C-alpha cells in the first residue's frame, strides 16, 4: 500500500516546529508501524536528507520508549497497543497518517518526535520506592501476600511509563501514571510503612513538574497500552486524602 505521512519536524527544543509531508511507498501489511517509518527514513537518508528522529527500543511494547501521537491519538488508538506493536494491517492504501510527538509542558520536545520525559523519573525519586537496602531482608515467604493483593499490585505495576496518559489528557495530567506507580507499592504489605509519605511526595512532585490537574475524563485509561484502570486514581486520591488528614 502507499500512504502519505504528515510528520512533525522540529530541530530542537528552542525552535519552531512544522509538519512535513512524506510518501510511504510499497508498505506491506505485516510491517509494524515503526518498520514503516524505518522504510521512509531509509529513503530519506539515501537521498541525503535527514531522517526524522523518534524513540524506540524493545519494539515489543514493554520498554515504554516509543511515543507517537498517530492521527491525534497517542499510540494510535488500538486497545492495549503501544506504537511499536501497531501493525500496518490496520491501515489501507491511500491513507494519510499524521504523526506528532507527545505534547505536554512537562515533556518538552528534544527533536522531531522525541520528547524529554525525565519528569516521570523525578516523581519516582520523590517516593516511588520501598526504602530497603540490599541484604538483610526476610525470607521471601515470610511476607505472605494475598493473591488478590498481589494481582492488583501487578495490574498497577504493569505501567510502562510511556506517558501516553499525559499526552492524551486535555490538562496534561500525570495522574494515571502516578496512581499506578503509587498503588503498586501501596497495595502490598511491603509498601505500608511509607504509604502516606509516598502518596504525598509523589503528588507534590507531579505538581511541581507542571503536569495539569485530573478531571477524571478517563481518556488516559482509554489510550494506556497496558490498560491501567482509572480505579487506581481513586485509590491514590484516597491514599492522598488519608495522608493529608493524618498531617504527615
Amino acid at each position, binding site marked *: 500500500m502507499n500512504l502519505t505521512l504528515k510528520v512533525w519536524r522540529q530541530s530542537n527544543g528552542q525552535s519552531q516546529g512544522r509538519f512535513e509531508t512524506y510518501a510511504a511507498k510499497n508498505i506491506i501489511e505485516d510491517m509494524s508501524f515503526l518498520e514503516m517509518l524505518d522504510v521512509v527514513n531509509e529513503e530519506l537518508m539515501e537521498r541525503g536528507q535527514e531522517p526524522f*528522529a523518534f524513540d524506540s527500543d524493545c519494539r515489543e511494547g514493554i520498554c515504554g520508549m516509543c511515543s507517537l501521537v498517530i492521527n491525534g491519538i497517542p499510540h494510535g488508538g488500538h486497545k492495549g497497543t503501544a506504537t511499536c506493536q501497531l501493525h500496518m494491517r490496520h491501515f489501507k492504501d491511500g491513507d494519510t497518517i499524521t504523526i506528532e510527538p507527545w505534547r505536554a509542558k512537562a515533556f518538552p520536545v528534544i527533536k522531531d518526535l522525541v520528547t524529554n520525559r525525565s519528569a516521570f523519573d523525578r516523581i519516582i525519586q520523590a517516593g*516511588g520506592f520501598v526504602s530497603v537496602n540490599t541484604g538483610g531482608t526476610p525470607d521471601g515467604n515470610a511476607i505472605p501476600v494475598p493473591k488478590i493483593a498481589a494481582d492488583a499490585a501487578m495490574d498497577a505495576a*504493569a505501567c510502562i511509563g510511556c506517558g501516553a496518559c499525559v499526552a492524551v489528557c486535555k490538562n496534561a495530567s500525570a495522574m494515571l501514571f502516578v496512581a499506578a506507580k503509587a498503588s503498586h507499592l501501596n497495595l502490598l504489605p511491603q509498601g505500608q510503612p511509607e504509604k502516606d509519605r509516598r502518596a504525598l511526595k509523589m503528588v507534590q512532585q507531579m505538581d511541581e513538574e507542571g503536569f495539569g490537574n485530573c478531571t477524571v475524563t478517563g481518556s488516559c485509561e482509554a489510550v494506556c497500552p497496558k490498560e491501567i484502570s482509572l480505579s487506581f486514581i481513586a485509590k491514590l486520591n484516597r491514599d492522598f486524602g488519608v495522608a493529608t488528614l493524618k498531617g504527615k
Partner: protein
Amino acid sequence: MALDSKTPSGPLAQKWDKHRFDLKLVNPANKRKFEVLVVGSGLAGASAAASLAELGYKVKCFCFQDSPRRAHSIAAQGGINAAKNYQNDGDSVYRLFYDTIKGGDFRAREANVYRLAQVSVNIIDQCVAQGVPFAREYGGLLANRSFGGAQVSRTFYARGQTGQQLLLGAYQALARQISLGAVQMFPRTEMLDVVLVDGHAKGIVVRNLVTGEVSTHAGDAVVLATGGYGNAFFLSTNAKGCNVTSIWRAYKKGAFFANPCYTQIHPTCIPVSGDHQSKLTLMSESLRNDGRVWAPKRKEDCTKPPGSIPEDARDYFLERKYPSFGNLAPRDISSRAAKEACDAGHGVGPGGLGVYLDFADSIKRLGVNVIRERYGNLFDMYEKITGENAYEVPMRIYPAVHYTMGGTWVDYNLMTSVPGLFVLGEANFSDHGANRLGASALMQGLADGYFVLPYTIGHYFATSKIARPATSHAEFRKAEEGVQERINRLLASKGKRTVTSFHRELGKLLWEKCGMARNEAGLKAALKRIPEIREEFWKNLIVTGQNGGLNQSLEYAGRVADFMEFAELLCTDALHRRESCGGHFREEFQTPDGEAERDDANFSYVAAWEFQGLDKPPVLHKEPLVYEEVHMSTRSYK
C-alpha cells in the same frame, strides 16, 4: 600471560564465604571518597549502582535510553531461578548449581556457578522486600513454574513481565539513591571509551546524545553492565539499541574478550515475515510448559491448515527425541531440533521456516481460562504481530538469536584483565558456559549487582590504592580526542548506503555462517567477507546530520562500526573451537544421531582473546576449566 581466575581454594560450598572473609574491607567513613562509574542501568547496572551507593560509595550511572527504567532487561518475560525449594520437589543450591553447569555444557567456571546458586535465594528475598509483585498462590506464598533444562519448579515470575518487575525494583532502589544524592544519573548518554591511567581503568569518555557533547568522567573504578551483543546478527530478540560498543572499546584497551562464539539461539520466537523486519520477538520459553512442539510428518501437509492434520501425521519431535525432558529440553537442543525439521522440509509458514507450538491439548485439559491467565499477554503479543489467534490455531515459532554467553573475561571478583575495570551481567562471559538455561540471566545480573560486586570492588579499593586522576590528565585528553576523531570520520561519510543496509548484510552473513550450525568452510568464508564489508562500510556509508544535537543516524553508525570489527572475533573464536558444545554447534563434530560432540581433552578451557590491533590476529589466552566437584559427563536429555 597466565589467566588467574582468583578462584578461592577450599571446598566448593565454602569458597564464597571464605573469600568474603579474605577480602579486604573499606572503612565506612572512607567509602564516600571512592567514586564508581557504572555504565548501564539494566538489572546488573541498576542493582550495582544502588547497592554501592547504599554502602556509601559515590556513584555515577550512565545509560543510553531516556530513563534507566528502559534498559533491555525490561523485556525479559519468563522468570528468574532461585534454589528456594519452596515446592519441596527436591531442589537445592547444589541442584541449581549442577543444572546450570550441565546446561552450560561444562564450559563455565565451577566456583562462579556455585556462588550464583548460593546467592539466588537472597535475590528473591531482596526483590520481595522491594515490592516486586511476584505471582502468588492463594495462601499468599510465592508461586513457581518450571523452565527448560530443569526438572524442578524453581522459577519465580511476575506474569509474563518478570524482567520488567525486577528491573523496576532495581530502578526504584536506584531512584531512591538518586534522590539521596548518592547516585548521579546520566540518561541519554553513551559511553564510547575507557580511560586507563597507569594500566588501571580510571575513567570513561561519553557522548551526550541530546547535545552531542563529548566529555570525560574520572572514577576510582569503572563498571560496565551494558548487556549482550546479540544484535551483531542484526535480527535478534534484543532491543534495537543493544550493542557491543562498551565492551568492544574496553577490549581494544586491553580487557580480554572470552568465548564470543557462545551465542544462544532461542527456540521459540515468532518467525521472520519479510525483508523489512527490524527485530524478532520472543515467545517466552515458559510456553513450552503447556505447549507441544510439532511439525507435519509429511511434507505435503506443511501448507495445510494445522487443524486438518491428524494426530498420527504429526511429529512431536522434542517428545520423540528427548522423552525425559520432552518439550522442556534446553534451548540449544530444542533450536537445533527445529532447524533440523525445517531443513528436512517439514517447516511451516513463510519460507518453511517455522514449526508449531500447539496449546490445544492444554486448553482441553485445563480450560482456556487457565491458559489465558498463565500466558495471556504472550498470546496477545502473538496476535498483534501475526494477526492470528493462538487459542484457536497453533503458534508458529522459529529459533532466533537471543542471548550471548560470551563477553568480557572476568575473574571470580568480576574484574577484567584491566585492573579497576569490572564487567557485570550479560556483558561478561562468566556463569553460563556454552549455553544459558532459561531464567538464569536475570538471576546472574542481579547476583552480580546486588551480591557480588559490592563485596569485591571494596577489595580492589583497599588493595590497589591508586588515586583517582583528574580529567585534565593527558590520558583523558587522548581518549577524548580519539572518540571525537571517530565521530568526525563517521559524520564525514557521505556515501550511498545506509547503516541499516550494512548492518543487515553483516547480520545475514553471521546468521548463515556463524549461527545455529557452523563449519570450517563457512567460517573461513565469513572471515574473508567481513573485512570487505567493513571496508565498504567506511567508504560508502551515509551518515546524515551534524554532531551538535540528537543524531540517531550517527549513534547507530557508531554501534554498527563496532559490530563490523567484533564480527571477526566472533568467527575467529568459532573457527578455533573445533568441538561442539552448547550453543556452539560445529557440524564436523557431532555424534551419529546429531548431538553435539564435546572435546574435553582439548577444549575444556575459556578462550580469552587479547586485542593486538585490527590488522593483527588476536592472541588467545586459555583459562583451564578445572572441575573439583562435578564430573564432566555427556549431556543427555533423553
